[in-house]
C-alpha cells in the first residue's frame, strides 16, 4: 500500500476539484490495491469487485486482437466508474463518481496527475508488466 507522500497529496488535491467524485483508487498491473480513498469507507468486497472488473476487462481486451486495455467506463443509473490503465507501467487509476460526474474533466485530471502517479508507482519498485526490476 502507498502511504502519505507529497506526490500523493498533490494527486488528491488535484482530484478534489472534481465534483461528484465518490472515490479514487490505484491498483497495480496485477490488480493489487495500492491506495484508495472513498467517501465513507468502502467494504473490502467493493475493492475486491473492482479488482475483479480490472482483471476481466484486461482479459477481454487481450482476447480482442491482443490489444491492451487503455480505459473503461461503467455507467449505472446513478453512478459512474472510470478505469484508466497506464500504457507502460500498467497500473490502473480508478475513479468512482455520481451520475453527474464530468467524465471529460475526470479524464483530463487523470492525465494531469499521471506523472505524479508514475513517480509514486516507481517508488514502490513494483515490476511493470513483462519487466523485471534490477
Amino acid at each position, binding site marked *: 500500500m502507498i502511504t502519505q507522500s507529497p506526490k500523493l497529496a498533490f494527486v488528491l488535491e488535484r482530484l478534489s476539484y472534481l465534483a461528484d467524485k465518490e472515490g479514487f483508487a490505484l491498483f497495480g498491473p496485477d490488480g493489487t490495491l495500492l491506495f484508495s480513498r472513498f467517501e465513507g469507507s468502502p*467494504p473490502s468486497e467493493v475493492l475486491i469487485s473492482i479488482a475483479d472488473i480490472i482483471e476481466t476487462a484486461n482479459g477481454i481486451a487481450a*482476447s*480482442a486482437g491482443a490489444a491492451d*486495455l*487503455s480505459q473503461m467506463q461503467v*455507467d449505472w443509473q*446513478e453512478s459512474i466508474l472510470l478505469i484508466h490503465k497506464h500504457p507502460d507501467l500498467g497500473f490502473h487509476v480508478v475513479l468512482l463518481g455520481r451520475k453527474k460526474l464530468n467524465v471529460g474533466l475526470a479524464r483530463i485530471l487523470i492525465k494531469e496527475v499521471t506523472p505524479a502517479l508514475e513517480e509514486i508507482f516507481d517508488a514502490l519498485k513494483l515490476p511493470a508488466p513483462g519487466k523485471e526490476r534490477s
Partner: protein
Amino acid sequence: MIKLEENWEASLLAAIWHRNRIVIQASNVDSANSLFSLWRYYIPQYRTFVLCGKIPKDARYIKGAKLIDVKEPEAQREAFELSYAEEELGAPPIQVVYFAAEPATLRNVLSALPQGWIATTSHPREEWEDESLRIRRVLSFAGGTLFFLDPLPEDVFIEQRLVQDMRDNSEGVKEFKVQLKQSEVHLAFQAILNEVESAGLLTQSYVSEMLNIRERTLAKILAIGAKERRMDLSRYIRRTAPEIVEFLKEMSSVKELYLATLFDGGDLVGYAKYRDIHFPSQNFLRIIQSVGTIPRNFLRSGPLKYIEINTRHVNILVYVHSIVFGFVLEAGPNPVMIRFKVEESLDQLLKAAGKAPAP
C-alpha cells in the same frame, strides 16, 4: 420435365449430395457405368456404398462398400431395406448403386428406398416411364443421359461456389475439395445435433457464432442433414426475429463495426460479424457479470446501463436494456460520433420493439 443447362455441375453435385434418386442411361451399360465413375467423387465418402446388380470390377474395390450378391429381387429388396433401416440406429447413410438395372428393378427392388440410390442402365427412357417412373429433370452429356427423379435442391450456392472454385483443378484436387466440404457440412450437422441433445432449443445466432457460418449456410446444413440423418433439426433452432435481422443489416452501414450481438437473458438472439475478428460473444456477459459483483448497497447506483472498454485497436460497447447489446468497433479518431450512430440505430430498434428506454 426441364432440361438442365446452366449450372448443371452444381445441380448434379447437389442432387447427389441431397440423396436424390438418379438413373444414368447410355447406349450400353459400360458407358453408363463410366459416367457413374466420372462423377463418383460427388458421393460423400462417409456414406456406405451398397452395390448391387452387375457390379463392374473397379467398383468392387470401393473402400468399405457392401456388395449385395443375391440375384433374387425380393432378397435384394430386403437387403436394401435393412441397410436403410440401420441408418435410424446411427449407421452412416447409405448410397445404393444398382449397376445394369432393368426397368422392372425399379418396381421390384429400388422402390423400397425413398432416396439415396443411383442406377446405371442401357434401357431407354420410355421403358422406365412405362414403369411409372416420373422424371423431373434430364441432363444429357458425353453420350449419356441422367434422369433425376426428385426435385432438385433449390439453393445450390455452396455447390456453385465449389464448382467455380475447382474449375481449373485436377481431378484429384476436385475430389479433395468436394469431400472436404461435404465432411465439413456433415460434422457441422453432428455438432448441432449434439448441442440440441444437451441444450434443447438453440438460437440461430448461437449456431451461427458456434460454427462461424451465415444463416444461408445453416439452412443448407440442416437441409442436407435432414436427408442424411433423417432428422429435422430446424424446429429446434429459433430463428432470429425479423426486426433484429433488420437492425443488424442496418448496422452494416457503420463501417467501423466488427461485431454486433444481442442477448435476451443468456440467449444470444442476434449475431452479425461484419469484419473478421475473434471475439466470443460470451465476453459481453462476462463483463456484465463482473461489474455485477459490486455490492449494490454500497453504490446505491441503480441499474447498470452501459459499459465501454477501450483498447488500442478496438472499442467494446455494451448497452444494458431489457435486451443486452454488445458491439466491437474499430478504435477510430472519432469514437463519440460512432457511438452516436450506434445509439441512434439502437433507439430505433427499441422503439420498434416497444422497449424504448425511459428518458
